[in-house]
C-alpha cells in the first residue's frame, strides 16, 4: 500500500508498504528516520515513542496504515533546525543511515573544548540540551523516546514535580542511568524555561 502522512512538518509518502509493518518500521527502514528505537517491539520500553497527532505512542504498536493522513513528530523533529532527513532520494524509498553517516559521531576539530560533535550547526531543543548537560545520556538507546515523552510533559506542565516527572516517564525504560540524571535533565529544562520566562517578564 501507499502511505501518506506528515512527519516532523513535512509531507511524506512511502510506497510498497506491507500491511503488517509498524509505524516504527516505516519510519526507520523506509523514511530514513532511525532515531526512534526498536528496543522491545512489544510496547513495553518506550524507546520508539513518537507523537501521533500530539499524543505520545509506542510506534512499534501502531500499524503503519493507522498513520495515514496524520501528523507524526519523532526525535528528529524535536529540534527547530533538525536535519532534513527525508531529502531527495529518500522520500518514498528505503533509506537508513549509510555507513559513512554511521561514522559521523567522530568528534570534529571544530567542536570546541567540550568535544561536542555535530556535522551541521544544530539548534537543540531545550530538553535535548538539558539531557546532554545533566549527564542523562549514557548508551543513549532510550534517549529518543524519553526526549519525546519529556518534551510532551513540559508542553503541558511547565513546572512538574518529581512525582509528575516519574509518572510521565514511567513508560520509558532506561538500563544505564538509574534515572537520576534523567530527572535532573527534566528539572533543568523546566528551570531554564522558567528563568527565560521570568527574564522576559512574560
Amino acid at each position: 500500500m501507499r502511505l501518506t502522512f506528515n512527519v516532523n512538518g513535512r509531507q511524506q509518502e512511502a510506497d510498497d508498504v506491507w500491511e503488517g509493518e509498524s509505524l516504527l518500521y516505516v519510519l526507520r527502514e523506509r523514511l530514513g528516520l532511525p532515531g526512534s528505537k526498536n528496543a522491545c517491539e512489544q510496547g513495553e520500553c518506550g524507546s520508539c515513542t513518537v507523537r501521533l497527532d500530539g499524543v505520545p505512542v509506542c510506534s512499534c504498536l501502531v500499524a503503519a496504515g493507522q498513520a495515514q493522513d496524520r501528523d507524526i513528530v519523532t526525535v528528529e523533529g524535536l529540534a527547530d533546525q533538525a536535519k532534513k532527513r527525508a531529502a531527495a532520494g529518500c522520500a518514498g524509498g528505503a533509506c537508513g543511515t549509510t555507513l559513512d553517516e554511521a561514522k559521523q559521531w567522530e568528534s570534529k576539530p571544530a567542536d570546541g573544548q567540550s568535544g561536542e560533535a555535530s556535522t551541521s550547526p544544530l539548534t537543540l531543543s531545550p530538553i535535548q540540551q538539558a539531557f546532554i548537560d545533566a549527564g542523562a545520556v549514557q548508551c543513549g538507546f532510550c534517549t529518543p523516546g524519553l526526549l519525546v515523552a519529556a518534551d510532551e510533559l513540559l508542553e503541558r506542565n511547565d513546572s512538574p514535580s518529581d512525582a509528575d516527572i516519574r509518572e510521565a516517564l514511567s513508560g520509558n525504560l532506561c538500563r544505564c542511568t538509574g534515572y537520576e540524571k534523567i530527572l535532573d535533565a527534566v528539572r533543568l529544562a523546566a528551570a531554564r524555561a522558567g528563568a527565560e520566562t521570568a527574564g522576559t517578564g512574560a
Partner: protein
Amino acid sequence: MGVTRTPTNITQGSQTKGGIGESTLRPDGTLKVTGEFAYSSDLWHEDMLWGFTLRSPHPHARIKSIDTSEALAQAGVYAVLTHDDLPTEHTKYGLEYTDTPVLADGVVRHHGEPVALVAADHPETARRAAAKIKVDYEPLPVVHDEASALADDAPILHPGRDDHHAGQVPHPNIVHRQPIIRGNAEEAAQRADVIVSGEYEVGMQDQAFLGPESGLAVPGEDGGVDLYVATQWLHSDLRQIAPVLGLPEEKVRMTLSGVGGAFGGREDLSMQIHACLLALRTGKPVKIVYNRFESFFGHVHRHPAKLWYEHGATKDGKITHMKCRIVLDGGAYASASPAVVGNASSLSVGPYVIDDVEIEAVALYTNNPPCGAMRGFGAVQACFAYESQMDKLAEKLGMDPVEFRQKNAMSQGTIMPTGQVVDSPAPVAELLRRVKAMPLPPEKQWEAAGDAADVRALPGGLSNTTHGEGVVRGIGYAVGIKNVGFSEGFDDYSTARVQLQVINGEPVATVHTAMAEVGQGGVTVHAQIARTELGVTQVVIHPADTQVGSAGSTSASRQTYMTGGAVKNTCEAVREKVLEIGRRKFGTYHPAWATAELLLESGKVVTDGGEPLADLVDVLEGETVDIELEWRHRPTEAFDLVTGQGFGHVQYSFAAHRAVVEVDTELGLVKVIELACAQDVGKALNPLSVKGQIQGGTTQGLGLAVMEEIIVSKDSKVRNPSFTDYLIPTILDTPTIPVDVLELADEHAPYGLRGIGEAPTLSSTPAVVSAIRAATGLALNRVPVRPEHITGT
C-alpha cells in the same frame, strides 16, 4: 553530594581546560539526543538482505533431520544455512572453551539454540521462511540442576572435552571447580561463641541492555567481509569469527557501531558469525536485528546460584572463620563460567578479615540457558550471601550491623583468602560510616503531608493499593568487594594510537583505540586524558575498529584503567617526541629546554614552574607525531587449583549501600524510598560520569533484589522472554540515589583511579533485602524477593 578530594602523590598532568577531573560532556551526546547516532540496528545498505535465526524449541534434543527446501523456495529468500553449510571444520566458538556450535550440530543443548539461518529481502519474509524449515527433533533427558548434572545416569553434555580444565574437574558436567583453603576453619570454629549458617539462592538475571543484538555484514571484493556490530571487545570477536569463516583475520574488518548498552551480555558472540556467513554466501550485505524476544535467547545471563555459608564469631564480635560452597549454573555452554568461578570463590569472603576459610565454587553444565558475564561477575551472588550472613551474625551477637561490619572490615594490608595482600586503600569501614551518616528521608510522609500526601510515593504507587495502612519502614546496609581488570594470570593489555598535528592553525590530537564505547563514557575520558597530557583543546576520537591493536574488553570495570592507561601512556610518548622536536628547533633560545621538567599545557610547552617556552603550533609546524603502543597492568597469577592461593587480582573496588524501604506487609509490595551509595573511586576522571555509573549499577542491583528473574522451568524452558514478563526497574521503581564519592588514590593505577562500574551493583541487592527483612522480620534467603515471599501466600 560533593566529591571528597584527598591529596595524593599521583601525577595529575597539566592544567589544560577540559582535562581529567572535569565533568566534560560526551562527544557523542549531540548525536544521541538528535536521533542521528548510528546504532548497529540503524545501519542500512543498498541491496541489503535481512537475516533471521531459527532456534530450538527444545532444551535438549537430537536433530534427526532438517529439510530446508520449502523455505528456500519462498519468493524473496536468498539463502538458508544449517550446520552442514559451514565452510570449514571450525564450527564452534567460545570465550574460554571452544564448545559453542555456530549452528546446532546434530544436537541442541538449550532452549533457543540457533539451528538454521535465513536471508531474505524483508525481515518478515525471512521470519516466515524460517517457520517453513522442517526440523525433526528427538527430545533427550534434561540436566537442570546439580543433582541431575551429577547423577549416575546423567547425560554427559559435552563428551570428549579438551578444554584446559577438563583434566581436573571432578565430573564432566562441571565446567570448572575452584577451592580456596587458608588457615584451618575447623580449628577456628572451636573459638566461636556463635555460629550462623544459611542457604541462599540468586535467580537468573538478564543484562537487559536496551539495544538488541544487531549488525551489518558487507561482503568485500577481496573475498573478505566488513562487519559493523555492537560488541564489548572487537578483537575477541575477531579471534572467534575468522576461523569459522575460513578467512585470515585481516580479511574480517570489524568496526564498532553504536552500542545500546552491554553489561556483560555482549562479551559472547551472538549474530556476528551468522551475518558474515549469510553475506559471504549471498554476496550481498546482510543485516540481522534481534527483537526483544530473541534477545533473551541471544545472549548469556547472570549465573543463578545456590550458596551455602557458615560463619562463626566470638562474643566480642570478631569473625572466627567462614566456610562456603557456591554452585553456579553455567547452562549449556561454558562462556565465561571458569572466570566467574574464579571470582565467586576468591571474593566469597567479602571485604572482611577472616583468616580461616574453606571455600569451594563450581559451575555446572546443564540444559538451562547459557550463563556468563554480567556486571558484577560472580561477586554479586557471593555478596548477597555473605552480607545476609553478616546481618545474621550481628543479630545473634546483639550488635549493630554496621558496627559489626566495621569491626571486621578489611583495610590496606589485609590478606585475602588467596594469600594476596591488599596493597592499596580499602576504606571499607569509612564507606559504611559515610553511607550511614547521610540524612534519612522523612518517615510516614502519608501522615505528615496530610491531604498533600502523594500516593505515588507509596508501595503500589499509582495502583492506589494503600494510603499507608500496613506499610512498615526498614533500613538495611551492605558493602561489597569487586576485582578490577582481567585476573588469574591473563595477559591483559590495551592499545592506543595517538596522533598530534596542526590542523587549521591549531594543534589537534587524534586518539584511536579499539575500545568498545557501550555508554560508559570511555570516549569522553580519552579526550580528557589527551587534553591533560598533550595540552591541546581539540581531540578527535577515531571510530573503534580492528585497524588498531586490541583494547581488551569493556568489562571487569577495566576500560578507564586499561585503555585510559594506554591512552595516557601513548600520550606520554607523543609528548616526549614533541619535546624532542622542540629542543631541536628551539633548544638554543632558552636554557630551560635542557634543564627543566617540561609540560604541554593549554597549547604551549611550559616549564613545571609555568613559564611558557614555545607554542605547540610552532613546534609541530611541518611535523606529525603518530605513535601506537600497548600498555599492560601489573601481572597477576593463576589461583592454585588445590589451595586457591595466588596473586590473582589487579585491583579491588569497594562500595557500600544503605537502603530505605517501605513495605506494604499485607500485599507484599516493596517501595524502595532511597538507596544511598558511598564508593571509593581512587580518582574521578569525570565526576558526572562516575555518578552515572554508580547510580546505574545501584539500580541494576535493586532490580535483582525485588524484580528481575528469568524464570526457567524444571524442563529447562525459558518462561518469560519479554519486557512484559521480565521486569526491570522503571523510573517509578527507582528511588533517589544520593552518592558520596571518596577518592583515595591507588598508586599502581593511572592517575590513582579505581575501576568503578561493577562495585555498586554488588551491595545494592543485599542492602535492599536487608531493609525488607528489617521491615518484615522475614528470613528472605532468595532474590529476587517477590510479593508472595513477603505475604507467605
